[in-house]
């Protein structure tokens, strides 16, 4: 095999590191998206036995947004294996304990019992905030686009933008807000 063909093979099967910002994103929709990159389904060379999955670094998992009242109602089950070891933990409680767990479980369960999910999950790196070790960030060469556009806070708009915004109606000048 010539050198050119060898490096072509190397480049085709190279592993890419992606970064994804989970802030303001629905973890379950994000999981559906990230699962494709982790399994290698986004590549034309995909085959389950091909080991072509990529790495994904997810930042700001602490800022995910669950829909409606899932924070209060979604409960995660855990059993220690011992008698009386069953426990149900609500999403907000779990998130307080470990801000990466919700997204991790979402990605894991999105793989639907696939036999390779145990080691595919090893390629998922979750961080509750933006602080990622520099070694890992050096590997990254792609950013996955967010699913939902992040809304901008009112106080993050500049004074000029607020003045120029085309308002339809406004409070009267002497109205006192409670």
């Amino acid at each position, binding site marked *: *095999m*010539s*050198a*050119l*063909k060898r*490096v*072509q093979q*190397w*480049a085709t099967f*190279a*592993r*890419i*590191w992606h970064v994804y910002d989970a802030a303001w994103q629905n973890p379950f929709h994000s999981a559906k998206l990230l699962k494709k990159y982790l399994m290698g389904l986004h590549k034309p060379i995909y085959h389950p036995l091909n080991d072509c999955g990529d*790495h994904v670094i997810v930042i700001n998992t602490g800022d995910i947004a669950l829909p409606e009242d899932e924070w209060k109602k979604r409960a995660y089950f855990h059993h220690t294996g011992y008698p009386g070891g069953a426990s149900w933990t609500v999403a907000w409680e779990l998130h307080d304990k470990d801000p990466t767990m919700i997204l991790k479980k979402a990605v894991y369960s999105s793989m639907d019992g696939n036999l390779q999910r145990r080691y595919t999950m090893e390629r998922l790196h979750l961080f509750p905030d933006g602080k990622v070790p520099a*070694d*890992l960030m*050096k*590997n990254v*060469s792609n950013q996955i686009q967010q699913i939902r556009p992040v809304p901008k806070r009112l106080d993050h708009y500049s004074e000029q933008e607020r003045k120029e915004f085309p308002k339809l109606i406004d409070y009267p000048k002497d109205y006192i807000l409670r």
Partner: protein
Amino acid sequence: MSLYRQTLALTSRLLLKQALKTRITGETRNIKRWVAPTLNELYTRRLKVGPEPPQPRSTFLEWNYEAEVFAFGKRLGEDFDKNILKQALTHRSFVIAEEEKAKQKGVQFEELASNRSLIKESDKIVSDFLKEEFKEHPDDVAEALHDYLTSVDMLAHVASHMGLRDIILTSEFPVENSTLADTFKAVVAALKQSQDLARAQIFVKDFLISQLNGKDIFDIWNPEKPLEYLTNLLRQRGINEFEPRLCNQSAANTILANYQVGLYNNKKLLGIGWGESIQIAKETAALDAIQRLHYQK
């Protein structure tokens, strides 16, 4: 109920045996119990003894040397002169061995022509033709191609698949690669003598040069230090310097690091290549640049 019937059948059979005072033999028409174990045992013993040593095809039955030699030419679609072809297939070692045998028996030895002179003649034919065919390639590439095609392994491979292995007359068995290679060359010379040089050249093209099919130039020709080679090549064309630029990279901190480097001259791309490290990527880019320069891709 069935238990009652079974005991009834058994007792009646026993009584019948007693009455008739005969033996009911167990002869049936199926495959006997001892057949499979016997065959298995024979098989393991055969394996233990080991494979049979290879024998030359000419020692088997139905070997007609004349017919084989005739068929060889016709199979290739070529018209050979019978005597010249036989000479091409006779190796010097065979001639010597025959002479020895004749001396031992005391029989007069009839001179057999060997293919020594034909081999020498063919060396020149093949080399000249290859050089002619590859004259559009750069010098060192043409030389590498020539060396690759005229190597002993390549010629032996072609000869073996052509069916020369069975009809060569040599003293040794199994036939060696060098003998096969030489005989191929002798056959080319025999064709030239039987017909003409043009026909022999077409023969070389069809059987030898066609071995290049599907091969990349860098499978055969590998310039050591491709960057230096490229520098010299560019200097010949008036380009004195080029700069390598990192185009893409992924997983830089891991063992599966992948880099893409492009070589540029005045913002014009000369060559681009991938690599496991930046140095390898540069070398691959140099190889790509060399390929583009030589063949104006």
